[in-house]
């Protein structure tokens, strides 16, 4: 479990996160949703340690991440996997080399064991046989799936996904959502997903955190979101009349 306790973050006097406290649960797909500029990406970057918090604490299974220095954080970081919005695949490496990368850096496996692991990961994301293609030769969906394969190569306890569906068609988005959900349940990983995609949220959101103007405005699950009285959340999730009608139907 990841526990976030009272974290705040400012940039040049502009407060982006205000006193946020929440938990991300293992074996669940935990969503962070919110409008653009609400602070959800900053929150995630603080949680993974790409940004330092101004105040507050972050615990990874009772281990206080915020007080650790760069070297002590390494152990926890090796338990993390992250899927980036733009996939962040190493463009000079093939699919196979991208997935091999964390294994070569940190595992004690032999070369053949590593290659076996790469093939297992590629099979898991339905990309068998694509080992020797470069990221530029892959479609957006395939790049995301390669990103997921790289993220799960080290069997992460914590999986972070930054807008995994951005730039994908609805059908491919569903494939990625299902993959993230299946991997979360299979590895019992603590998965944190930042998303704008309400279809994903309503489909796979086991635990949802709504950030509004830098504050945690609402917490709940995909069923509770239909019945919430939080106006900002309703405006965000059901912005059009059409969506509001869908909501009423779902509620009934």
């Amino acid at each position, binding site marked *: 479990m990841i526990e976030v306790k009272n974290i705040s973050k400012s940039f040049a006097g502009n407060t982006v996160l205000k006193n946020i406290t929440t938990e991300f649960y293992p074996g669940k797909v935990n969503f962070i949703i919110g409008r653009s500029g609400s602070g959800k990406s900053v929150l995630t970057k603080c949680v993974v340690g790409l940004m330092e918090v101004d105040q507050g604490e972050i615990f990874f299974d009772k281990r206080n991440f915020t007080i650790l220095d760069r070297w002590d954080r390494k152990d926890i*970081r090796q338990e993390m996997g992250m899927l980036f919005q733009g996939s962040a695949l*190493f463009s000079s490496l093939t699919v196979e080399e991208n997935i091999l990368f964390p294994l070569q*850096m940190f595992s004690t496996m032999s070369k053949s064991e590593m290659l076996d692991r790469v093939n297992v990961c590629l099979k898991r994301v339905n990309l068998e046989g694509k080992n020797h293609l470069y990221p530029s030769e892959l479609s957006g969906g395939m790049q995301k799936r390669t990103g997921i394969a790289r993220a799960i190569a080290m069997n992460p306890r914590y999986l972070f996904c930054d807008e995994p569906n951005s730039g994908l068609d609805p059908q491919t988005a569903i494939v990625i959502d299902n993959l993230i959900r299946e991997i979360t349940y299979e590895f019992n990983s603590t998965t944190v997903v930042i998303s704008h995609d309400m279809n994903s949220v309503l489909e796979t959101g086991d635990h949802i955190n709504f950030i509004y103007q830098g504050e945690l405005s609402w917490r709940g699950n995909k069923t509770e979101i239909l019945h919430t009285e939080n106006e900002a959340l309703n405006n965000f999730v059901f912005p059009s009349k059409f969506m509001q009608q869908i909501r009423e139907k779902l509620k009934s």
Partner: protein
Amino acid sequence: MSSVYFNIGKYFLLMVNTFTKPEKRRIYPKLIVQEIDKIGLQSLGIVALLSLFMGAVVTLQTAANIDSGWIPRWTIGFTTRQTMILEFSSTIVCLILSGKVGGNIASEIGTMRITEQIDAMEIMGINSASYLILPKIVAALFIFPFMVILSMFIGISAGAFVGYTAGVTSLNDFEYGLQYSFELWQVSYSIIKSFFFAFIITSVSAYHGYFTHGGPREVGASSTRAVVYSMVLILIANYVLTQLLLL
């Protein structure tokens, strides 16, 4: 002024990170060989071409400017040697390489930054500064002296060839000029300079690439800044090293 100190501090902190213990040492030899190819071998063509024509032109210019019978013809060989060894092969070649190699390093690392590839490394627990920058610095420190020596050889050979074929000097005169008052220390001085310039080009360019923020336009801007700052620092370092080593 405070931003100058801020950037200098940031540069030194990046260098500290770069030279801290790498995650897995046995990966580095392969990376260094790749960088030697990228930084050095792929620049051999431009270094050879420049040295060839500069050696030839210095020879012809010297010959054209000797209009007194009191100045011996071997001065042509002597001047070509001094020009190539003392300044052209080390300083000018490195200034040109700062454009090619420095721009390349800054844009490569800058693109990795804006496409979150560096963030991906950091999240995996990899010291991205060490992984990305250290092999480039080591490769440049290794290959630049060889390129400088090659440049000297090609420039002086081209000078001899052009001087002889243009009829401005005989090979014997040219050879006499080459050997006249020759001090091996001058070659060492040039090689020592190339070490400093190699470090400046790779580290300054990597710094500008590593701290790129924004999009492709900012990568271009980082690349330009990397070349400009590298060139200015090379010129300053050239002056300081000449003062320290030759006088």
